[in-house]
């Protein structure tokens, strides 16, 4: 290949040549370098040079587990795409997935291990890996049973190693994976309800694409809930063609999912389950129930006084009747119990009510399935398991009680992500050694860590993932490094393995792998062996040769079955699902508004606040960028004489925040909406001192005896401060400003 000559270089060189020519008084034209000026008539975009190399990998920007394609040139990744063959993403990718490159090339990434002396206020100093790992190894060996791991999202392969690490450490702990984003997914509650109603305690699989009428109960399935890319593809299927399927959204705040629905019903928060009952009752009354429904399901709905309840919820009964008819008469109805239901103390009952509605209209095994198991069965478990709120709180209590000597924080920022009332700060103060593995400086590491051992980003390390919820095809996605490490970092698994090796003993026994690659390689072989037992012919990789299998696994981005193998639902209806359980405790308090907190579409719970692309991409409903805001109903705005951008003081029992108002057409009176995501203090230049950390407002109310946090039950008051901020957003005017005529 000819050396590439840029115009700049040409100018530089020609300048040099001219200078040399003047000195030597001799022509320098005969150097053999052909130099051509490219005229401005040619646009640079017309000239494309070089060839891209594509690698498959696994997106870790959220827990959904989309397969991706990474486009690279000269060892640099410059674009992420969905892997067209991957069952979950099928060539698509969401905004957060796209921004993975800004995790990889984040200007604020830690460039190597850092340590500081005892005082946690000291500045960090660079150290080398040997010393850093020695600290880890020593800590592991010296504190058996007194080690804990916290993370916001641990990839499946990391979780498995982390779990083994804790197993080796003794003390009966498992990695604590919990934050408000995970809480808002409501995985555990949904699994439990599925156990009650669908006969297996697995995540249900909602086949939106196969449905023709969908009712979403507080499910932001196009945004952040569980597997948004998969659901979005399903939604596209639903809407496609002449038989355009319908979507009804039942939720107190108009999310962008609800914004594209045909109808939006806004019952008071926490009473979505009752809407399911009303619809079920109408279906029963109109004799529209599925013929093959379990007989016992009728009992759940027959007692409902539908019209009165609808009135109580402030909903138009006639409209509900129309919705219910369309729903039940459609070929493939589907009711989705979304993560938003888990926000209230009646969550289990509400989710069960919605699942039962599915049974009533015959959704099981038409649109409603169960998530397929891992390809290798139990061999590759444990996959990542989300902890409950109570487990997390217990960890913090242990820390406060001084029962944790070493806290390993992996890919999470507990100081930021956990509500202030949970008291992470006090807890962390009692932990003698806190090691943070985040590739970035985080609030937690900046304030509490003694040692920072930055891990690779997911684009630099090996791994695998089994999506949960998956698709109809059981899948094990490949993750592989696509670029050389940008900085002196190591993969988290390698760090754990190295630590275990240094600690020796049980650690070395339970974590025998040499490095991450060997571990992943072996895991894939385990899967292959399991598949060879009978399923290899129905898989995407048709070879028994381990070498070749591993190669193709990486080449195509994973293994997945080619035949649908999702487990069927065998409905069971426990008799104890009763209407009474749906009644939420609605404490009448001094604070007039219910706080509806929700994960930011782009920043999630805040882990993406350090990516400029995601900060600059507008929230679809408000078009706000780079900021926090509180959404209030136009009526309330009028009452308090507030307009968009006015700063208010939002106060709950736990905290008080000052934040600009967004007057939002899609939120009911009595509710105020706030996205998570901002309010970092040490998360890099794009995140620092920006907006407020809204999770701090949360009160710690539990969902019955499930151990989950009722994150939607906090009540707040709003008070005008008189300040104003030009809330940065894309929209420039409200339609309300349109004159009616002069």
């Amino acid at each position, binding site marked *: 290949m000819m050396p590439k000559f840029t115009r700049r270089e040409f100018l530089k060189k020609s300048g040099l040549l001219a200078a040399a020519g003047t000195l030597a008084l001799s022509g320098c034209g005969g150097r053999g370098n052909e130099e051509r*000026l490219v005229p401005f008539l040619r646009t640079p975009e017309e000239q494309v040079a070089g060839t891209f190399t594509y690698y498959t990998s696994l997106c870790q920007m959220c827990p959904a587990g989309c397969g991706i394609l990474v486009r690279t040139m000269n060892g640099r990744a410059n674009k992420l795409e969905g892997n067209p063959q991957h069952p979950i993403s099928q060539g698509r990718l969401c905004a957060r997935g796209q921004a993975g490159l800004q995790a990889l090339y984040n200007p604020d990434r830690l460039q190597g291990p850092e340590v500081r002396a005892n005082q946690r206020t000291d500045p960090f100093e660079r150290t080398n890996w040997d010393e850093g790992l020695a600290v880890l190894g020593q800590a592991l060996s010296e504190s058996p049973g007194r080690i804990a791991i916290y993370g916001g999202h641990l990839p499946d392969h990391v979780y498995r190693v982390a779990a083994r690490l804790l197993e080796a450490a003794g003390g009966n702990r498992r990695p604590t994976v919990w934050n408000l984003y995970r809480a808002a997914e409501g995985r555990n509650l949904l699994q439990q309800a599925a156990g009650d109603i669908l006969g297996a305690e697995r995540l249900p699989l909602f086949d939106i694409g196969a449905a023709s009428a969908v009712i979403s109960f507080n499910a932001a399935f196009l945004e952040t809930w569980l597997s948004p890319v998969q659901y979005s593809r399903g939604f596209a299927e639903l809407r496609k063609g002449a038989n355009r399927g319908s979507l009804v959204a039942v939720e107190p705040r108009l999310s962008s999912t609800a914004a594209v629905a045909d109808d939006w019903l806004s019952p008071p928060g926490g009473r979505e389950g009752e809407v399911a009952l009303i619809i079920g009752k109408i279906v029963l009354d109109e004799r529209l129930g599925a013929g093959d429904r379990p007989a016992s399901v009728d009992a759940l709905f027959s007692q409902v006084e539908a019209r009165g309840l609808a009135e109580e919820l402030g909903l138009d009964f006639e409209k509900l009747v129309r919705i219910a008819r369309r729903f039940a008469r459609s070929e493939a109805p589907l009711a989705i119990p979304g993560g938003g239901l888990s926000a209230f103390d009646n969550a289990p009952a509400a989710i069960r009510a919605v699942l039962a509605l599915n049974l009533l209209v015959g959704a099981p095994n038409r649109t409603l399935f169960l998530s397929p198991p891992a390809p290798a069965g139990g061999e590759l478990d444990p996959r990542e398991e989300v902890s409950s709120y109570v487990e997390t709180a217990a960890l913090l209590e242990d820390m406060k009680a001084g029962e944790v000597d070493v806290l390993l924080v992996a890919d999470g920022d507990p100081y930021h992500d956990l509500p202030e009332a949970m008291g992470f700060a006090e807890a962390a103060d009692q932990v003698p050694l806190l090691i943070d593995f985040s590739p970035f400086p985080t609030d937690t590491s900046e304030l509490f860590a003694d040692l920072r051992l930055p891990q690779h980003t997911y684009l630099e390390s090996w791994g695998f993932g089994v999506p949960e919820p998956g698709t109809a095809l059981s899948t094990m996605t490949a993750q592989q490094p696509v670029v050389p490490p940008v900085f002196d970092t190591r993969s988290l698994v390698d760090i754990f393995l190295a630590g275990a090796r240094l600690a020796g003993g049980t650690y070395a026994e339970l974590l025998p792998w040499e490095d991450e690659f060997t571990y992943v390689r072996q895991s894939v072989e385990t899967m292959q062996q399991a598949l060879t037992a009978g399923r290899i012919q129905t898989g995407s990789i048709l070879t028994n040769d381990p070498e070749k299998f591993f190669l193709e696994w990486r080449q195509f981005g994973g293994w997945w079955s080619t035949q649908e193998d999702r487990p069927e639902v065998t409905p069971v209806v426990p008799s104890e699902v009763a209407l009474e359980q749906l009644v939420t405790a609605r404490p009448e308090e001094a604070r007039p508004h219910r706080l509806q907190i929700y994960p930011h579409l782009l920043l999630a719970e805040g882990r993406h606040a350090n990516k400029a692309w995601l900060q600059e991409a507008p929230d679809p409903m408000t078009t706000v960028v780079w900021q926090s805001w509180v959404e209030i109903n136009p009526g309330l705005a009028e009452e308090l004489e507030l307009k968009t951008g006015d700063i208010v003081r939002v106060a709950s029992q736990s905290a008080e925040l000052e934040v600009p108002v967004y007057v939002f057409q899609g939120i009911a009176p009595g509710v105020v909406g706030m996205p998570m995501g901002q309010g970092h203090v040490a998360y890099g230049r794009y995140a620092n001192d920006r907006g407020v950390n809204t999770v701090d407002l949360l009160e710690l109310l539990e969902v019955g005896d499930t151990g989950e946090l009722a994150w939607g039950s906090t009540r707040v008051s709003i008070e005008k401060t008189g300040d104003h901020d030009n809330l940065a957003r894309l929209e420039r005017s409200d339609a309300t400003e349109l004159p009616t005529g002069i």
Partner: protein
Amino acid sequence: MARLPNWARLPRYSGGPTRGLGQEAVPEAERQLAYEHQDERHEPGAYSTLQDAVADGTIEDVPPTEEELARMDAALDGIVLRSMTRVGAGYLLLAAVLGMGAASLFGAWLYQIFAGIGVAGINRPVFWGFYITSFVFWIGVSHSGTLISAILRVLNVEWRRPLTRGAEAMTLFSLMVGALFPLIHLGRVWKFYFMIPYPNVRELWPNFHSALVWDLVAILTYMTSSALFLFMPMIPDMATARDRTTGIRRRIYGVLALGWRGSQQQWHRLHLAMKVYTIVIIPVAVSVHSIVSWDFAMTTNEGWHSTIFAPYFVIGAIYSGVAALITVLIFVRRGLGLQDYITKFHFDRLGLILLAVSVIWFYMFFAQTLTNWYGGNPVDRELEHLHIFGAMAPLWWFMVVVNVLLPFFTLWFKRVRRSLPAMLVITILINMGMWIERFLIVVGSNVRNHLPFDWGDYTPALPEIIIAAATFAMFAFLYVALSKALPFVSLWEVKEGWRLDKWRTQGIVEGETEPAQEPRGASPPPSENRPEEVPA
């Protein structure tokens, strides 16, 4: 019997010497008489008294003799050239202040170039702001100088004589200021030469479809022709200056005089050239502002793409130009001590023109607004709403008051037209209004467009404000600085006026040279040009 002093007749055309003549020129008695009548000479009653006096034979109406004319010439030369050569402390202070003002423009501009155009307050969708507003404004101001001068010349209006030079200079100066803005507003001004059509290795050629290229051509043409229009009639004055100065000045003026010796042939050629040029420059002037208007009218933007825009802009330009001319003349008259040559009579006449133009402008403005509103196009309606009731209402109403109501209710009155302070306030207000009118046009249509999601707002940033304000300093600075180099009264034209007047009233005296330029109509009786016949 006293002789009717020269001023009593001559001021009708070109002002007359009362102060500048000094003692050696006018006998004491005449001077006394002159002062007595100075303020009333244009008052209807006073003038007729004066005429009565002539009729009575109380005063003898005798045209100036050749000798007196020569003394008057000398006095005029003296005044003008003295102001050109004398530099006082006050002048230096003024020049320094204005010079600093002008320099701040370049300072702010340099800052903008190095920091990026983003330091200005413009944004999406308000891509054009103060800069283009200022551009249109200054091009508008430039309009009147040359145009008025040319039209008055074509119509052979005698009282134009002491005004033309100042007017023509105004055109050139405001063009120099205005032409900066297309450069200032560029994102990459260092590449401005991309627009100039010349063969180059970039294989680029400007796009002659673009109204901006028309602009470039039009403005450069106008600038060149205005400069020539200013310079050509200045040649004899350069010769005068050459003959009355010494040293370096003499040499410079010698070059600028282009070898003028005042020969019959030279006078003939000058007059011929001026005749042709005067006619040719009128369409050039009209075209320039039409093209500036087409920068807007050729777009798809609501509020801009209007067929009436070219004449609307032209008349707006004349409007602000005439107002600016009056403002400038007030300062020039005062600054150079030309009270005897630029008299209240001139302001009276210019005031009348201003009144007429303001009414035509209002008509255009009304037609434009009415069709916008009546058309019912939602964007246009929203635009009108924004102007009349919305955020821009204070500006819009200010404009309506000072540009429509104020001139209409004041300029009908001769007393107002003759009051210099009043005229100063009115013309400055009118130009403020015209600046705002341009702002409303440029920014108004930018903040409202077809997609309400993309409606914008605009707050000018400091560099923009500095630059926009500094242009006024720069304009004044050009005047102040060049007042030491150029005669701001056309000496020979004024002198010619005196002689024409003499010949008109007296006929050709044997032995005297024939006038090079014959006035229209032979010897009109003085009453035909009487100022008091203006309807009050």
